[in-house]
């Protein structure tokens, strides 16, 4: 249970990246860190409670994470093809 603070720290770093960076790839890295922090909880509790289900759920969490990453990359590539930029501030022009 001592590692929960570590998971919270990783979550905080991910949220910091999401809120301060404008590059789409950096945002993806931040999302990766947040998912790492979330899946870390499964492992920590599986280890401390000796419940194998935590590890099994982590495999599920990883595959969902892979799907999210794949969709995000497809969106990044489409955005780059359309706008030739990775800056999310440019994307706000789409609202107009």
């Amino acid at each position, binding site marked *: 249970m001592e590692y929960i603070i570590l998971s919270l720290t990783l979550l905080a770093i991910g949220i910091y990246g999401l809120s301060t960076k404008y590059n789409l790839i950096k945002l993806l890295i931040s999302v990766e860190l947040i998912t790492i922090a979330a899946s870390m909880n499964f492992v920590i509790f599986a280890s401390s409670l000796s419940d*194998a289900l935590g590890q099994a759920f982590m495999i599920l969490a990883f595959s969902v994470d892979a799907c999210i990453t794949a969709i995000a*990359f497809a969106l990044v590539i489409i955005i780059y093809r359309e706008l030739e930029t990775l800056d999310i501030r440019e994307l706000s022009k789409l609202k107009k």
Partner: protein
Amino acid sequence: MVRIMFDVLLVVGLVVSAFLAVYLDETTYAVLSLAVTNVILSVFYFGLDTPFAAVFQLTMGIGTVAVLFLTGQMLAPKTGNVQSLKQSLLGLVVGILLSVPAILAVGHNIPVTNPVGFPLSTALWKLRAIDIIAQGLVILTVSLGITVVLKEKGRRRQK
């Protein structure tokens, strides 16, 4: 004592590399930092006696890093604005400072770990059963959907 030192080193490495992955402006260095995070995390999971999680973390992490690296190399603009050494060192120091709460939590005592003694097939099939098939279908659908979307966009662009 050795175990505590090892845990503290892992915690510091994990937090610093995660922070640098977000902090560094150069995409290549940020992705390399994320790769280091994934490797340290995998070692950390082995230390917690959760080998399946460690193996999956390593494989998934390295796959993601490879894709991120290629995407970064292809798409990231080459601005030439490289962060100075002072800024990079600042990131390192902030990363170390961020790891202090976790060090204080881990450094007090050796975390209790309980090894899970069963094969991978039990984790995949006996504990999860039918949802792994649903999961496979979801992954297949997502990959097909992405392929279709990318091809359609490429076709429209050619027109």
